[in-house]
Protein backbone atom coordinates (compact mmCIF):
# COMPACT_ATOMS: atom_id res chain seq x y z
CA UNK A 1 0.00 0.00 0.00
CA UNK A 2 2.96 2.30 0.60
CA UNK A 3 5.88 1.88 -1.75
CA UNK A 4 8.96 4.08 -1.39
CA UNK A 5 11.64 3.65 -4.05
CA UNK A 6 15.09 5.20 -3.68
CA UNK A 7 13.72 8.45 -2.29
CA UNK A 8 16.02 11.36 -1.53
CA UNK A 9 15.13 14.79 -0.18
CA UNK A 10 17.69 17.56 -0.25
CA UNK A 11 17.54 21.13 1.01
CA UNK A 12 20.47 22.79 -0.74
CA UNK A 13 23.55 20.88 0.41
CA UNK A 14 21.73 19.20 3.27
CA UNK A 15 20.34 15.72 2.64
CA UNK A 16 17.35 15.12 4.91
CA UNK A 17 16.44 11.73 3.42
CA UNK A 18 19.04 9.69 1.58
CA UNK A 19 18.04 6.97 -0.93
CA UNK A 20 15.38 5.33 1.21
CA UNK A 21 13.40 2.37 -0.09
CA UNK A 22 10.69 0.53 1.79
CA UNK A 23 7.23 -0.88 1.36
CA UNK A 24 4.34 -1.40 3.75
CA UNK A 25 1.53 -3.83 2.99
CA UNK A 26 -2.11 -3.98 3.97
CA UNK A 27 -2.63 -5.11 7.54
CA UNK A 28 0.80 -4.00 8.72
CA UNK A 29 1.51 -1.69 11.60
CA UNK A 30 5.02 -0.37 11.16
CA UNK A 31 6.95 1.67 13.67
CA UNK A 32 9.30 4.31 12.42
CA UNK A 33 12.05 4.95 14.94
CA UNK A 34 14.82 7.50 14.96
CA UNK A 35 16.27 10.39 16.94
CA UNK A 36 15.01 13.90 16.42
CA UNK A 37 16.15 15.22 13.05
CA UNK A 38 16.70 11.72 11.66
CA UNK A 39 14.39 12.32 8.70
CA UNK A 40 11.23 10.57 9.95
CA UNK A 41 8.93 13.56 9.59
CA UNK A 42 10.42 14.54 6.22
CA UNK A 43 9.70 11.08 4.85
CA UNK A 44 6.14 11.16 6.21
CA UNK A 45 5.63 14.63 4.72
CA UNK A 46 6.67 13.26 1.32
CA UNK A 47 4.32 10.30 1.68
CA UNK A 48 1.38 12.59 2.44
CA UNK A 49 2.16 14.85 -0.59
CA UNK A 50 3.18 17.84 1.53
CA UNK A 51 6.77 17.71 0.26
CA UNK A 52 7.88 16.46 -3.16
CA UNK A 53 10.91 14.12 -3.18
CA UNK A 54 14.07 15.48 -4.80
CA UNK A 55 14.43 12.08 -6.48
CA UNK A 56 12.81 8.67 -6.30
CA UNK A 57 9.15 7.70 -6.27
CA UNK A 58 6.50 7.12 -3.62
CA UNK A 59 3.17 5.47 -4.31
CA UNK A 60 0.31 5.20 -1.84
CA UNK A 61 -2.38 2.63 -2.62
CA UNK A 62 -1.05 2.59 -6.19
CA UNK A 63 -1.06 6.37 -6.70
CA UNK A 64 2.06 8.45 -7.18
CA UNK A 65 2.39 11.22 -4.57
CA UNK A 66 3.58 13.78 -7.13
CA UNK A 67 1.57 12.96 -10.25
CA UNK A 68 -1.63 11.91 -8.49
CA UNK A 69 -1.52 13.86 -5.26
CA UNK A 70 -5.28 14.32 -4.89
CA UNK A 71 -5.93 10.56 -5.15
CA UNK A 72 -3.26 9.96 -2.51
CA UNK A 73 -4.78 12.55 -0.18
CA UNK A 74 -8.20 10.95 -0.53
CA UNK A 75 -6.84 7.62 0.65
CA UNK A 76 -4.58 8.90 3.36
CA UNK A 77 -5.06 9.94 6.96
CA UNK A 78 -2.15 12.00 8.24
CA UNK A 79 -1.66 13.21 11.79
CA UNK A 80 0.98 15.93 11.64
CA UNK A 81 3.87 16.15 14.07
CA UNK A 82 2.60 19.39 15.59
CA UNK A 83 -1.06 18.40 15.31
CA UNK A 84 -1.97 21.96 14.33
CA UNK A 85 -5.71 22.53 14.58
CA UNK A 86 -7.86 25.61 14.06
CA UNK A 87 -7.69 26.99 17.58
CA UNK A 88 -10.88 29.04 17.57
CA UNK A 89 -13.09 26.36 16.03
CA UNK A 90 -15.48 24.19 17.97
CA UNK A 91 -14.45 20.55 17.87
CA UNK A 92 -17.68 19.36 16.20
CA UNK A 93 -17.38 22.09 13.56
CA UNK A 94 -13.74 21.21 12.96
CA UNK A 95 -14.66 17.56 12.37
CA UNK A 96 -17.52 18.62 10.12
CA UNK A 97 -15.19 20.93 8.16
CA UNK A 98 -12.63 18.15 7.68
CA UNK A 99 -15.32 15.63 6.71
CA UNK A 100 -16.89 17.94 4.15
CA UNK A 101 -13.49 18.69 2.61
CA UNK A 102 -13.02 14.92 2.45
CA UNK A 103 -16.22 14.73 0.40
CA UNK A 104 -18.29 12.76 2.93
CA UNK A 105 -22.04 12.89 2.40
CA UNK A 106 -24.15 14.41 5.17
CA UNK A 107 -25.37 11.03 6.45
CA UNK A 108 -21.92 9.44 6.21
CA UNK A 109 -20.34 12.43 7.93
CA UNK A 110 -22.76 12.21 10.84
CA UNK A 111 -22.13 8.48 11.18
CA UNK A 112 -18.35 8.90 11.04
CA UNK A 113 -18.30 11.78 13.50
CA UNK A 114 -20.25 9.65 15.99
CA UNK A 115 -17.73 6.85 15.47
CA UNK A 116 -14.55 8.90 15.88
CA UNK A 117 -15.98 10.80 18.84
CA UNK A 118 -16.67 7.51 20.58
CA UNK A 119 -13.45 5.76 19.57
CA UNK A 120 -11.21 8.71 20.40
CA UNK A 121 -13.19 9.47 23.57
CA UNK A 122 -13.65 13.15 22.85
CA UNK A 123 -17.36 13.28 23.64
CA UNK A 124 -16.73 15.60 26.59
CA UNK A 125 -15.23 18.31 24.38
CA UNK A 126 -17.15 18.20 21.09
CA UNK A 127 -18.99 21.40 21.97
CA UNK A 128 -15.86 23.23 23.09
CA UNK A 129 -13.37 25.24 21.11
CA UNK A 130 -10.05 23.55 20.35
CA UNK A 131 -8.14 26.13 22.38
CA UNK A 132 -10.17 25.17 25.45
CA UNK A 133 -8.99 21.56 25.31
CA UNK A 134 -6.04 19.97 27.09
CA UNK A 135 -3.06 18.63 25.16
CA UNK A 136 -4.30 15.06 25.53
CA UNK A 137 -7.71 15.98 24.15
CA UNK A 138 -6.14 17.97 21.32
CA UNK A 139 -4.09 14.95 20.31
CA UNK A 140 -7.20 12.80 20.26
CA UNK A 141 -9.11 15.45 18.29
CA UNK A 142 -6.29 15.40 15.74
CA UNK A 143 -6.50 11.61 15.59
CA UNK A 144 -10.28 11.80 15.17
CA UNK A 145 -9.88 14.21 12.24
CA UNK A 146 -7.25 11.88 10.74
CA UNK A 147 -9.53 8.85 10.88
CA UNK A 148 -12.77 10.62 9.96
CA UNK A 149 -12.85 9.51 6.32
CA UNK A 150 -11.90 5.93 7.16
CA UNK A 151 -8.57 6.02 5.30
CA UNK A 152 -6.81 2.93 3.94
CA UNK A 153 -3.39 4.33 4.75
CA UNK A 154 -2.68 6.03 8.07
CA UNK A 155 0.44 8.06 8.83
CA UNK A 156 0.91 9.15 12.41
CA UNK A 157 3.77 11.44 13.37
CA UNK A 158 4.48 11.16 17.10
CA UNK A 159 0.84 10.25 17.78
CA UNK A 160 1.09 9.63 21.52
CA UNK A 161 2.70 12.95 22.25
CA UNK A 162 0.80 14.62 25.08
CA UNK A 163 -1.17 11.54 26.10
CA UNK A 164 -1.02 10.26 29.66
CA UNK A 165 0.03 6.61 30.28
CA UNK A 166 -3.53 5.31 30.42
CA UNK A 167 -4.40 7.10 27.21
CA UNK A 168 -1.26 5.68 25.58
CA UNK A 169 -2.35 2.14 26.43
CA UNK A 170 -5.84 2.83 25.06
CA UNK A 171 -4.29 4.36 21.96
CA UNK A 172 -2.13 1.27 21.32
CA UNK A 173 -5.15 -1.01 21.54
CA UNK A 174 -7.15 1.28 19.29
CA UNK A 175 -4.43 1.41 16.64
CA UNK A 176 -4.09 -2.38 16.71
CA UNK A 177 -7.83 -2.70 16.16
CA UNK A 178 -7.55 -0.53 13.05
CA UNK A 179 -4.90 -2.57 11.28
CA UNK A 180 -7.20 -4.89 9.33
CA UNK A 181 -7.33 -3.78 5.71
CA UNK A 182 -5.11 -0.79 6.37
CA UNK A 183 -1.44 0.11 6.34
CA UNK A 184 -0.37 2.08 9.39
CA UNK A 185 2.97 3.82 9.76
CA UNK A 186 3.71 5.74 12.90
CA UNK A 187 6.84 7.54 13.88
CA UNK A 188 8.29 7.93 17.31
CA UNK A 189 11.58 8.45 19.07
CA UNK A 190 10.46 6.11 21.83
CA UNK A 191 11.40 2.44 21.31
CA UNK A 192 9.16 1.16 24.10
CA UNK A 193 6.17 2.75 22.42
CA UNK A 194 7.04 1.52 18.94
CA UNK A 195 7.79 -1.98 20.22
CA UNK A 196 4.46 -2.20 22.01
CA UNK A 197 2.36 -1.47 18.92
CA UNK A 198 4.16 -2.54 15.79
CA UNK A 199 5.26 -5.85 14.37
CA UNK A 200 7.93 -4.32 12.21
CA UNK A 201 10.50 -1.65 12.87
CA UNK A 202 12.14 0.87 10.58
CA UNK A 203 15.15 2.61 12.07
CA UNK A 204 16.34 5.80 10.45
CA UNK A 205 19.18 8.14 11.29
CA UNK A 206 20.79 11.01 9.39
CA UNK A 207 18.35 10.44 6.56
CA UNK A 208 19.35 6.84 5.93
CA UNK A 209 17.24 3.77 6.60
CA UNK A 210 19.45 1.64 8.85
CA UNK A 211 17.17 -1.27 9.59
CA UNK A 212 13.93 -2.69 8.27
CA UNK A 213 13.13 -5.82 10.23
CA UNK A 214 10.33 -7.58 12.06
CA UNK A 215 10.43 -6.78 15.75
CA UNK A 216 10.70 -10.50 16.52
CA UNK A 217 13.98 -10.66 14.55
CA UNK A 218 15.41 -7.76 16.50
CA UNK A 219 14.39 -9.36 19.76
CA UNK A 220 16.08 -12.63 18.67
CA UNK A 221 19.23 -10.75 17.77
CA UNK A 222 19.21 -9.05 21.15
CA UNK A 223 18.71 -12.33 22.96
CA UNK A 224 21.54 -13.94 21.00
CA UNK A 225 23.86 -11.16 22.11
CA UNK A 226 22.51 -11.24 25.63
CA UNK A 227 21.51 -7.62 25.52
CA UNK A 228 18.33 -5.58 25.73
CA UNK A 229 16.44 -4.58 22.62
CA UNK A 230 17.27 -0.94 23.22
CA UNK A 231 21.00 -1.74 23.21
CA UNK A 232 20.62 -3.49 19.86
CA UNK A 233 18.85 -0.45 18.47
CA UNK A 234 21.53 1.87 19.82
CA UNK A 235 24.22 -0.33 18.26
CA UNK A 236 22.50 -0.05 14.90
CA UNK A 237 22.38 3.73 15.17
CA UNK A 238 26.00 3.96 16.36
CA UNK A 239 27.24 1.77 13.50
CA UNK A 240 25.65 4.22 11.08
CA UNK A 241 27.99 6.93 12.27
CA UNK A 242 25.26 8.57 14.28
CA UNK A 243 26.95 8.05 17.62
CA UNK A 244 27.42 11.77 18.16
CA UNK A 245 23.69 12.28 17.94
CA UNK A 246 22.96 9.37 20.22
CA UNK A 247 25.50 10.51 22.78
CA UNK A 248 24.06 13.96 22.85
CA UNK A 249 20.58 12.61 23.30
CA UNK A 250 21.64 10.35 26.16
CA UNK A 251 20.21 6.92 26.89
CA UNK A 252 17.36 6.88 29.34
CA UNK A 253 15.24 3.97 30.42
CA UNK A 254 12.20 3.56 28.22
CA UNK A 255 13.42 6.19 25.82
CA UNK A 256 16.50 4.34 24.61
CA UNK A 257 18.51 7.40 23.86
CA UNK A 258 15.91 9.01 21.59
CA UNK A 259 15.22 11.98 23.80
CA UNK A 260 11.86 13.60 24.07
CA UNK A 261 11.24 16.38 21.61
CA UNK A 262 12.30 19.53 23.45
CA UNK A 263 9.84 21.61 21.47
CA UNK A 264 6.89 19.65 22.70
CA UNK A 265 8.03 18.01 25.89
CA UNK A 266 5.98 20.17 28.16
CA UNK A 267 2.51 21.49 28.18
CA UNK A 268 2.50 25.07 26.98
CA UNK A 269 0.70 26.16 30.10
CA UNK A 270 -2.29 27.59 28.26
CA UNK A 271 -4.08 24.33 27.86
CA UNK A 272 -6.26 23.03 30.57
CA UNK A 273 -8.57 20.11 31.09
CA UNK A 274 -12.05 21.08 30.09
Amino acid at each position, binding site marked *: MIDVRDVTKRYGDFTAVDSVSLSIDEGEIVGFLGPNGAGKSTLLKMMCT*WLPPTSGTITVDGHDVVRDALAV*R*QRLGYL*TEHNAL*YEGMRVDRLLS*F*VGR*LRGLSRARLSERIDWVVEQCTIGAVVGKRVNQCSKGYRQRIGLAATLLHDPRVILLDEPTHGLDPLQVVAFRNFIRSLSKGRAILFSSHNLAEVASISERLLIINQGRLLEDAPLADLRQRSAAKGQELEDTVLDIVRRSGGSAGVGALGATAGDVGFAADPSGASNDGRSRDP
Partner: protein
Amino acid sequence: MTSASTVGPVEGVLVIAGRELGSTIDSKIAYVYTIAFVVLTNSIFMNEFFLTGTVDMTGFFDLMPLLLPVFLPAVTMRQWAEERKQRTIEMLLTMPIRPLHAVLGKYLAALALFGMFLAGSLPIVCMLVALGEPDLGLIASGYLGLLLFGALLLAIGQFFSSLGSDQIVAFVTTAAVGFLFVLSGDDRVVAVLDGLFPGGEIGTHVYEWFSVAPHYEAFVRGVVGLPALAYFGGLSALFLWINAQVLERFRT
Protein backbone atom coordinates in the same frame (compact mmCIF):
# COMPACT_ATOMS: atom_id res chain seq x y z
CA MET B 1 -13.65 0.88 5.18
CA THR B 2 -14.91 3.37 2.64
CA SER B 3 -13.78 3.86 -0.92
CA ALA B 4 -12.04 7.18 -1.46
CA SER B 5 -14.66 9.93 -1.57
CA THR B 6 -14.09 13.18 -3.38
CA VAL B 7 -15.21 16.74 -2.90
CA GLY B 8 -16.17 18.73 -5.99
CA PRO B 9 -14.30 21.96 -6.75
CA VAL B 10 -17.33 24.17 -6.06
CA GLU B 11 -18.17 22.44 -2.80
CA GLY B 12 -14.53 22.58 -1.75
CA VAL B 13 -14.44 26.33 -2.38
CA LEU B 14 -17.69 26.82 -0.45
CA VAL B 15 -16.53 24.72 2.52
CA ILE B 16 -13.31 26.76 2.76
CA ALA B 17 -15.25 30.02 2.37
CA GLY B 18 -17.68 28.98 5.11
CA ARG B 19 -14.90 28.18 7.55
CA GLU B 20 -13.05 31.37 6.74
CA LEU B 21 -16.10 33.57 7.13
CA GLY B 22 -17.12 31.78 10.32
CA SER B 23 -13.65 32.30 11.74
CA THR B 24 -13.72 36.02 10.86
CA ILE B 25 -17.14 36.50 12.41
CA ASP B 26 -16.16 34.48 15.49
CA SER B 27 -13.11 36.67 16.02
CA LYS B 28 -15.30 39.81 16.06
CA ILE B 29 -12.95 41.41 13.54
CA ALA B 30 -15.78 41.62 11.02
CA TYR B 31 -17.88 43.76 13.35
CA VAL B 32 -15.06 46.15 14.19
CA TYR B 33 -14.05 46.59 10.54
CA THR B 34 -17.62 47.01 9.33
CA ILE B 35 -18.59 49.54 12.00
CA ALA B 36 -15.39 51.56 11.51
CA PHE B 37 -15.77 51.51 7.74
CA VAL B 38 -19.46 52.45 7.75
CA VAL B 39 -19.05 55.24 10.30
CA LEU B 40 -16.05 56.71 8.48
CA THR B 41 -17.47 56.57 4.95
CA ASN B 42 -20.92 57.78 5.92
CA SER B 43 -19.66 60.69 8.00
CA ILE B 44 -17.24 61.84 5.30
CA PHE B 45 -19.98 61.56 2.68
CA MET B 46 -22.47 63.53 4.80
CA ASN B 47 -19.92 66.30 5.29
CA GLU B 48 -19.44 66.56 1.50
CA PHE B 49 -23.18 66.24 0.90
CA PHE B 50 -24.06 69.21 3.11
CA LEU B 51 -21.33 71.31 1.44
CA THR B 52 -22.34 70.60 -2.18
CA GLY B 53 -26.06 69.90 -1.72
CA THR B 54 -26.29 67.60 -4.77
CA VAL B 55 -28.14 64.30 -4.77
CA ASP B 56 -25.40 62.08 -6.16
CA MET B 57 -22.70 59.82 -4.74
CA THR B 58 -19.74 61.09 -6.75
CA GLY B 59 -18.04 62.36 -3.60
CA PHE B 60 -18.44 58.95 -1.96
CA PHE B 61 -16.99 57.10 -4.95
CA ASP B 62 -14.13 59.61 -5.25
CA LEU B 63 -13.22 59.02 -1.63
CA MET B 64 -13.23 55.23 -1.62
CA PRO B 65 -9.97 54.59 -3.54
CA LEU B 66 -8.14 56.26 -0.68
CA LEU B 67 -9.91 54.27 2.04
CA LEU B 68 -9.92 50.78 0.54
CA PRO B 69 -6.10 50.33 0.49
CA VAL B 70 -6.21 50.84 4.25
CA PHE B 71 -9.26 48.75 5.11
CA LEU B 72 -9.05 45.76 2.79
CA PRO B 73 -5.46 44.68 3.54
CA ALA B 74 -6.64 44.29 7.14
CA VAL B 75 -9.18 41.74 5.92
CA THR B 76 -6.70 39.65 3.92
CA MET B 77 -3.51 39.96 5.96
CA ARG B 78 -4.29 36.98 8.17
CA GLN B 79 -5.66 34.64 5.53
CA TRP B 80 -2.51 32.63 4.78
CA ALA B 81 -0.05 34.23 7.21
CA GLU B 82 -2.03 32.82 10.12
CA GLU B 83 -2.31 29.39 8.49
CA ARG B 84 1.46 29.38 8.20
CA LYS B 85 2.07 30.68 11.71
CA GLN B 86 -0.35 28.18 13.31
CA ARG B 87 0.90 25.43 10.98
CA THR B 88 -2.67 24.55 10.01
CA ILE B 89 -1.61 25.06 6.39
CA GLU B 90 -0.11 21.56 6.40
CA MET B 91 -3.44 20.04 7.43
CA LEU B 92 -5.39 22.17 4.97
CA LEU B 93 -3.20 21.55 1.95
CA THR B 94 -2.95 17.80 2.52
CA MET B 95 -6.73 17.60 2.15
CA PRO B 96 -7.94 16.38 -1.25
CA ILE B 97 -8.39 19.89 -2.66
CA ARG B 98 -6.25 21.95 -5.00
CA PRO B 99 -4.52 25.03 -3.59
CA LEU B 100 -6.44 27.16 -6.10
CA HIS B 101 -9.71 26.01 -4.54
CA ALA B 102 -8.46 26.98 -1.09
CA VAL B 103 -7.41 30.37 -2.49
CA LEU B 104 -10.83 30.89 -4.10
CA GLY B 105 -12.61 29.88 -0.90
CA LYS B 106 -10.72 32.43 1.13
CA TYR B 107 -11.24 35.01 -1.60
CA LEU B 108 -14.99 34.39 -1.59
CA ALA B 109 -15.10 34.88 2.19
CA ALA B 110 -13.18 38.16 1.88
CA LEU B 111 -15.55 39.33 -0.87
CA ALA B 112 -18.52 38.54 1.37
CA LEU B 113 -17.01 40.65 4.14
CA PHE B 114 -16.35 43.48 1.67
CA GLY B 115 -19.99 43.15 0.58
CA MET B 116 -20.97 43.76 4.21
CA PHE B 117 -18.84 46.91 4.18
CA LEU B 118 -20.56 48.17 1.05
CA ALA B 119 -24.02 47.26 2.34
CA GLY B 120 -23.32 49.67 5.18
CA SER B 121 -23.38 52.54 2.68
CA LEU B 122 -26.83 51.69 1.29
CA PRO B 123 -28.58 54.08 3.73
CA ILE B 124 -26.90 56.86 1.72
CA VAL B 125 -28.67 55.66 -1.43
CA CYS B 126 -32.00 55.46 0.42
CA MET B 127 -31.51 58.99 1.75
CA LEU B 128 -30.74 60.37 -1.74
CA VAL B 129 -33.82 58.66 -3.20
CA ALA B 130 -35.93 60.16 -0.42
CA LEU B 131 -34.49 63.65 -0.96
CA GLY B 132 -34.53 63.85 -4.76
CA GLU B 133 -34.08 61.92 -7.98
CA PRO B 134 -30.49 60.61 -8.12
CA ASP B 135 -29.25 58.82 -11.23
CA LEU B 136 -29.53 55.23 -9.98
CA GLY B 137 -27.74 53.88 -13.06
CA LEU B 138 -24.74 56.06 -12.23
CA ILE B 139 -24.83 54.89 -8.61
CA ALA B 140 -25.04 51.22 -9.65
CA SER B 141 -22.13 51.69 -12.03
CA GLY B 142 -20.10 53.34 -9.26
CA TYR B 143 -20.81 50.44 -6.91
CA LEU B 144 -19.73 47.98 -9.60
CA GLY B 145 -16.44 49.86 -9.99
CA LEU B 146 -16.00 49.86 -6.24
CA LEU B 147 -16.70 46.14 -6.02
CA LEU B 148 -14.18 45.38 -8.78
CA PHE B 149 -11.50 47.61 -7.27
CA GLY B 150 -12.07 46.02 -3.86
CA ALA B 151 -11.94 42.56 -5.42
CA LEU B 152 -8.55 43.41 -6.95
CA LEU B 153 -7.20 44.64 -3.61
CA LEU B 154 -8.45 41.46 -1.89
CA ALA B 155 -6.66 39.31 -4.49
CA ILE B 156 -3.46 41.32 -4.01
CA GLY B 157 -3.83 41.14 -0.23
CA GLN B 158 -4.33 37.39 -0.16
CA PHE B 159 -1.30 36.95 -2.41
CA PHE B 160 0.96 38.96 -0.08
CA SER B 161 -0.47 37.08 2.90
CA SER B 162 0.67 33.81 1.29
CA LEU B 163 4.29 34.94 1.10
CA GLY B 164 5.08 34.70 4.81
CA SER B 165 3.78 34.25 8.31
CA ASP B 166 3.89 37.93 9.31
CA GLN B 167 0.50 39.61 9.07
CA ILE B 168 1.89 43.11 9.49
CA VAL B 169 4.23 42.69 6.53
CA ALA B 170 1.29 41.44 4.47
CA PHE B 171 -0.79 44.45 5.50
CA VAL B 172 1.90 47.02 4.75
CA THR B 173 2.90 45.57 1.37
CA THR B 174 -0.71 45.26 0.24
CA ALA B 175 -1.53 48.81 1.34
CA ALA B 176 1.62 50.11 -0.40
CA VAL B 177 0.78 48.34 -3.67
CA GLY B 178 -2.85 49.48 -3.37
CA PHE B 179 -1.79 53.11 -3.00
CA LEU B 180 0.62 52.73 -5.93
CA PHE B 181 -2.30 51.63 -8.08
CA VAL B 182 -4.34 54.62 -6.89
CA LEU B 183 -1.75 57.40 -6.71
CA SER B 184 -0.28 56.55 -10.13
CA GLY B 185 -3.54 57.97 -11.46
CA ASP B 186 -3.25 61.29 -9.65
CA ASP B 187 -2.69 64.21 -12.05
CA ARG B 188 0.15 65.61 -9.94
CA VAL B 189 1.99 62.28 -9.82
CA VAL B 190 1.57 61.85 -13.58
CA ALA B 191 2.92 65.38 -14.16
CA VAL B 192 5.93 64.80 -11.90
CA LEU B 193 6.81 61.48 -13.58
CA ASP B 194 6.39 63.02 -17.05
CA GLY B 195 8.61 65.90 -15.95
CA LEU B 196 11.34 63.58 -14.67
CA PHE B 197 11.81 62.02 -18.10
CA PRO B 198 10.88 64.66 -20.69
CA GLY B 199 9.71 63.09 -23.91
CA GLY B 200 9.33 59.67 -22.28
CA GLU B 201 5.90 60.39 -20.83
CA ILE B 202 6.52 57.77 -18.15
CA GLY B 203 3.75 59.16 -15.96
CA THR B 204 1.23 59.03 -18.77
CA HIS B 205 2.17 55.46 -19.66
CA VAL B 206 1.93 54.38 -16.03
CA TYR B 207 -1.48 56.05 -15.82
CA GLU B 208 -2.72 54.32 -18.94
CA TRP B 209 -1.26 50.85 -18.38
CA PHE B 210 -0.91 50.40 -14.63
CA SER B 211 -3.17 52.73 -12.66
CA VAL B 212 -6.69 51.82 -11.59
CA ALA B 213 -7.72 55.45 -12.00
CA PRO B 214 -8.85 55.53 -15.66
CA HIS B 215 -10.78 52.27 -15.25
CA TYR B 216 -12.35 53.13 -11.92
CA GLU B 217 -13.23 56.64 -13.02
CA ALA B 218 -15.03 55.20 -16.04
CA PHE B 219 -17.36 53.33 -13.70
CA VAL B 220 -17.91 56.44 -11.58
CA ARG B 221 -18.89 58.32 -14.76
CA GLY B 222 -21.37 55.56 -15.57
CA VAL B 223 -19.34 53.88 -18.32
CA VAL B 224 -19.21 50.11 -17.91
CA GLY B 225 -16.68 49.17 -20.58
CA LEU B 226 -14.99 45.93 -21.52
CA PRO B 227 -11.42 47.28 -21.05
CA ALA B 228 -12.17 48.22 -17.44
CA LEU B 229 -13.85 44.87 -16.75
CA ALA B 230 -10.90 43.06 -18.35
CA TYR B 231 -8.41 45.15 -16.34
CA PHE B 232 -9.96 44.39 -12.95
CA GLY B 233 -10.95 40.81 -13.78
CA GLY B 234 -7.63 39.98 -15.40
CA LEU B 235 -5.45 41.43 -12.65
CA SER B 236 -7.51 39.82 -9.88
CA ALA B 237 -7.35 36.43 -11.61
CA LEU B 238 -3.60 36.84 -12.13
CA PHE B 239 -2.95 37.51 -8.43
CA LEU B 240 -5.18 34.59 -7.38
CA TRP B 241 -3.38 32.27 -9.78
CA ILE B 242 0.07 33.40 -8.59
CA ASN B 243 -1.16 32.90 -5.04
CA ALA B 244 -2.05 29.28 -5.82
CA GLN B 245 1.35 28.78 -7.47
CA VAL B 246 3.07 30.10 -4.34
CA LEU B 247 1.17 27.58 -2.23
CA GLU B 248 2.06 24.77 -4.66
CA ARG B 249 5.73 25.59 -4.64
CA PHE B 250 6.74 27.07 -1.30
CA ARG B 251 6.84 23.62 0.28
CA THR B 252 9.79 22.50 -1.82
